[in-house]
């Protein structure tokens, strides 16, 4: 396989390592500066989660590889050059260990990217929930309430309809329901307005309402998506509807005598337990308005057992593969004595503890390598002095 040799050589070369490291540094720097104007989420999408991008330096457009691409190649480079092909000797043992530690870190990132769920529960004092929802991603959900008090739910992820526009609708088929959904327009940020007599609009008006697109907010969590949907029954009958992310209730439809709620909402997951917020507390330093601590007193209800837990900054709750963190609170204009809500970030990440192990391995590798070097250096200096 002579023809592959140059490719293997290239992929395992130190030259490539250096180039990629410099590129990654450049992207990190540009992505940091970009946040000032455009916010973290936009910077992340443009510089870090991308394969390619165009960086605007003033009026000059510079094409660059995205950090995902760079890190992908770096991963290959690390495996081939830093682990497979590296000279195996006592002198390189530390380097090898360090590289393995970095691989573990990358593996953690990979697992997190593909197998984690990441969202939040926001509860007012006295409320409870067993659901948590994404900060960023939207889904269309069809919910059927069952007589037992349970609900049966099917969802379609944002990736399936995000590009829906006039002329290229997204057709979302259901597996066993008497209708399916067609999304004809999707707006990542919009408002719903009643169509008054004095208002002109260039989009369809459904039941007296229409969606007005708005520019994207810097803070992605502020964006509220909306969509024009058509529900198509098995008899081919079409029903137009507006779905909006800030709706108070789903759209109600009836097919074959069954009632369904259809909603565009933030992606949502069910937890194997219920969390009830009893009390949120914000403590300030004495005679100051600087927060000293935030904590939520919650009750974790599972089956019939109840457990009281305090979740505070730096002290999350770990339960059944989920970790609940004190993330935020509000309302920000609350007066003393007002009812408060607490936002708990919820993460399911199978690789939660990998970085710690990776950190230990990397530390061991680096210490091994550099102490070897230091010993050599001291011996060298001593010889010189002698």
């Amino acid at each position, binding site marked *: 396989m002579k023809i592959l040799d140059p490719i293997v050589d290239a992929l395992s070369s130190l*030259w490539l390592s250096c180039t990629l490291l*410099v590129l990654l540094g450049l992207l990190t*720097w540009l992505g940091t500066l970009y946040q*000032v104007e455009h916010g973290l989420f936009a910077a992340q999408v443009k510089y870090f989660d991308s394969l390619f991008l165009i960086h605007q330096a003033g009026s000059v457009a510079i094409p660059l590889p995205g950090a995902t691409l760079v890190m992908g190649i770096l991963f290959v480079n690390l495996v081939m050059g830093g682990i497979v092909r590296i000279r195996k000797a006592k002198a390189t043992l530390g380097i090898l260990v360090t590289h393995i530690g970095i691989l573990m870190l990358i593996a953690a990132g990979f697992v997190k990217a593909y197998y984690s769920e990441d969202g939040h529960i926001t509860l007012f004092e006295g409320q409870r929930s067993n659901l948590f929802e994404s900060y960023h991603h939207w889904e269309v959900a069809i919910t059927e309430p069952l007589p037992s008090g349970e609900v049966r739910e099917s969802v379609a992820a944002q990736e399936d309809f995000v590009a829906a526009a006039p002329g290229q609708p997204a057709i979302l088929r259901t597996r066993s329901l008497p209708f399916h959904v067609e999304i004809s327009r999707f707006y990542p940020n919009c408002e719903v307005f009643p169509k008054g007599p004095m208002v002109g609009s260039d989009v369809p008006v459904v039941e007296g309402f229409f969606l007005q697109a708005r520019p994207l907010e810097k803070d992605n969590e502020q964006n509220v998506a909306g969509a024009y949907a058509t529900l198509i029954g098995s008899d081919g009958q079409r029903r137009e509807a507006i779905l909006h992310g800030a709706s108070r209730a789903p759209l109600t439809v009836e097919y074959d005598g069954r009632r369904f709620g259809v909603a565009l909402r933030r992606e949502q997951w069910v937890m194997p337990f219920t969390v009830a917020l009893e009390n949120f507390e914000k403590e300030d330093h*004495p005679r100051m308005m600087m927060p000293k601590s935030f904590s939520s007193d919650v009750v974790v209800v599972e089956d019939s057992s109840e457990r009281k837990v305090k979740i505070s900054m730096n002290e999350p709750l770990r339960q059944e593969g989920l970790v609940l963190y004190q*993330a935020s609170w509000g309302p920000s204009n609350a007066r003393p004595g007002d009812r408060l809500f607490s936002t708990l970030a919820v993460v399911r990440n199978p690789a939660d503890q990998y970085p710690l192990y990776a950190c230990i391995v990397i530390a061991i590798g680096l210490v091994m390598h550099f102490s070897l070097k230091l010993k050599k250096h001291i011996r060298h200096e001593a010889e010189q002095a002698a």
Partner: protein
Amino acid sequence: MKFLARTLALLLALAALLPLARATQSDEDAHSGTHGTPHGPLQRSAPWPAETLELAASLPIQDGGRIKPLSTYASFMLLRLNGKRAVELPGGAKLTPIEWLLDMLFVPGQAEGYPVFMVSDIQAVEAIGISVADKKKRDRYSAAELRKGRSKLYELAREYERIEEKNRSTVQQQVFSLALNFDAYERLETSFDFARHDLDVSGSTGLRKIFGADSVRFSQLVGRVPEVMALQRGLRSDAGSSGDLQALNAVLQEASAVSQGTGILALVPSLGSVKAEPEWHAAEDLFLRAFEPTGVDARYIAALARLEDVARSASDMPRFSKAVSELHGSVTPMAAARGEYEKIGLEISYYKANLITNSLVLFILGFLLAAGLWLAPRVKALYVGANLAVFAATALLTGAIVMRCMIRERPPVSTLYETLLFVTATGALIALAMEWINRQRMALSSAAILGVVGLFIANGYETLDKKDTMPQLVAVLDTNFWLATHVTAITIGYSAGMLAALIASVYLVSKVLGLKRADPQYFRSLTRMTYGTLCFGLIFSVVGTILGGIWANESWGRFWGWDPKENGALLICLAQIVVLHARMGGYVRDFGIQMLAAFGGTVVAFSWFGVNLLGVGLHSYGFTSGIHTALWTYYGIQWGLMAVAGAHHLYERGRDAAVQEALRASSQAGKAKPS
């Protein structure tokens, strides 16, 4: 109709209240004290006795969420107003912060004339309509001078407040902060008005009966509030005594007015436990507490009476000294009972020992000796002296850091100011260790330079920031475990990065200036030092960065979020890793390593201070506009040096190549070798 009638009634009711608005208060009214009460004596009869000053300095006060000595409070307040920790009087005499504070509180009339308001741009003073005939562009003003423009000052400040800080012009910002300072000053100088003021109860027969006098002190009133309230109830049910009721209400309102704003000095320790009652007290809240069913404990009343004694004896020095000592004897046991007095002595010694300044002086001495060593390399005494000076300086600095840890009960680094101390100390220690290994003198010089620059910046930072350098921490930072691990590791990484950049700069400067041209060993040794420092730093940068991710995972639920501070840490790691790999691949040699290490210094500076100036992200915990200038100065110097060295390097390489070409040509031609 009804609508109109109602509207009118409402309008009238509101209009009646309008004159209360602060905007209508004239400057002259304002000066007779916020509460219209007379000030204390106009002149201090003699200097405050030394032992009284010492007692006053060690009075505990709750400020900025912690208990500190009154001297610390005074010195940072003065630093904030005056830009330095002393008052220079027109006659040339100097006042220490605690002397100034006592003057402010007890002879406000005299303090009024002290030039304690530092204004860096005269336009700010002109803007509030004060004549500035005999003032320099950057000059100091007394409260008496500024008072003439008081209402204009507040008016402008309210206007500028609505402009986002980064969009304010220099003058607007100056006016704004002058207004904040002036406001703090006014609160402070009237904070003992309650103690000097006599409440006139002669208008109410009932009150006269309760107190047995025509005028009472504030503390006396607070002590008898239950009786006063009973009297009030009685009067209210008796229609015939409305005059008496009015007089009584007037007294209560007067007491409320004189105590308002005293919260700026919380000098009375709480009697409860630290957990149950974290807040200390001032006249203001004790007065309100008196109306609650629980009432006010007699010990609080006694403490208030002690404060009154102090304020009322300011014109009689022996009496004053006695009053201060009684106050001290009354409040310190209260603080000690809560376990809040133990650190006061330590903090006073910390500031008295002046460790940072002394360390700086020794570093400067060490630097001078090391510089002498460059000129006279063989003088052994110079070498020993320089070593001793730098070592002692590092020891003092380390001592200062240890004392701070003990006072705060925190790991060494939890604020931006402390990173400066810690980076300087660890950098000097690493350099001393290297010197101990190779005894080449370069590491020693680097340690001295780093010490001087680091502490100079630390002092500058403190002066710019003008805030207590031992503040309380926001909720997320309140964890000693992560401060001790992640923050310490990252800061050691900074330290190594800066030291490597410094040694690299020494290398580049030597190259450009043609020093030690004949000594390749010198340059190789420098490169080994740079490389070794980078390796050392890399361990801490990488481990620190990953620990940061783990911390973030513990408190926010995500390991990495491309937050600016995280990115900065990553940049440092990448910069250091690139050097190692490029060296291993043979893409860089001595010069290249040094150039990359020098550049790495600016990467560290960006991560350390630069990202905080971006003003975004979860980590922006410190912002001081003056840092911006310092940072860009450093970038400029470092990049400038790199550019010059690079040009010089290319020039030399071109020349060497030409020489080599000539050599080859001559040898090919079989000519005689050049001499």
